[in-house]
């Protein structure tokens, strides 16, 4: 037994479902990494555009905007699901979490399927020219991220169904929603670059 000046923290909670958690900060870091990568790719897109006379290069059809716009709206709406889930996580309501995650997953999958269709209808591929390479890379990376997050959402749903509702589970739901917000948010500029930029900056330089 020794006597020391002490600061007693036994009253603090185990886990707080909020931005106080290191995992939330870790997730923000990952979002920064992804975001930085997409920013560099957008910069490269315009760099390539500046060095060419025609944009997109000859033989490339302008991409359709109708379906991608629908997918964008779907993605934005799916954030409501994430929001409900994360609110449910904060209040420890299993039903709200489950419903929110299911909504997120359903709309997210619809978003990916429609994107896949719009992607399929592009008349260029990664090996067509530099425009094709850039667009396919951006689409590919974002799809990869979105798929990974939706898979994670699905895993969370399964875990919820199996009755895991502990604090770390709720924290995971909360963080999952943060990532989804980020993916939807970053998709907005990417959508504009891929589908609208060729229309605005497409005139011969």
């Amino acid at each position, binding site marked *: 037994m020794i006597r020391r000046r002490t600061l007693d923290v036994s009253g603090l909670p185990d886990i707080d479902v909020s931005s106080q958690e290191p995992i939330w900060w870790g997730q923000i870091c990952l979002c920064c990494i992804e975001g930085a990568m997409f920013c560099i790719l957008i910069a490269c897109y315009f760099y390539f555009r500046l060095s060419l006379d025609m944009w*997109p290069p000859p*033989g490339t*059809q*302008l*991409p*359709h905007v109708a379906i991608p716009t629908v997918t964008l709206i779907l993605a934005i709406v799916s954030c409501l699901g994430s929001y409900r889930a994360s609110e449910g996580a904060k209040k420890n309501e299993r039903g709200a979490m489950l419903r929110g995650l299911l909504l997120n997953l359903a709309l997210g999958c619809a978003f990916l399927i429609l994107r896949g269709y719009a992607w*399929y*209808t*592009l*008349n*260029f*591929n990664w*090996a*067509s*020219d530099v425009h094709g390479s850039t667009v396919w890379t951006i689409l590919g990376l974002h799809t990869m991220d979105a798929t990974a997050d939706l898979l994670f959402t699905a895993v969370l749903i399964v875990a919820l169904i199996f009755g895991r509702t502990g604090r770390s589970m709720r924290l995971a739901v909360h963080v999952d929603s943060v990532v989804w917000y980020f993916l939807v948010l970053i998709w907005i500029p990417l959508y504009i670059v891929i589908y609208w930029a060729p229309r605005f900056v*497409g005139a011969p330089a």
Partner: protein
Amino acid sequence: MRKLAAAGIAVLALISWTLTSCQREKRELRAAPVRRAIYGDAARQSELQPGGPQTEPQVTNPDHANAWSISEGQRLFEWYNCVGCHSHGGGGIGPPLIKKHWIYGGQPANLFDTIVKGRPNGMPAWGGRIPEYQVWQIVAYVRSLAGEQPFAATPVRTDELEQKPTTIHNKVQGETR
């Protein structure tokens, strides 16, 4: 135990990949002065052979699956103006080389013959002009165009205009500019 198995798999994968790279990455800068007469099937003008059928010589391309040689072949394909007729494999005046069907046989020995001896209707005879080791390099490259070389030893593109297939996706007609 599980972990040991996993580690074992990793080690095996590394070893197997190590072995594959020996052939691929060799760089034979100085050609061995070999002269080999090639008489492939396609070189014969007649099926008849005096004294009974000859045993076919076993001819293998010394540059098969060697990345450096394929790349040298690619350079020579341009330097010796093969592109003038065959384009970058797509064909033009000469037949395309991105294909599975060969008029005079697609084995390395046949291709060697074709280059060295020439063929009717325009293929010049390069024998005596191009050193043999370079012919083999060109053969290795031409075979890579037809996908007859390992992926890992083949360059996927040149720093040129890409030869595009005529249609990629023409299913939906979008607006064109």
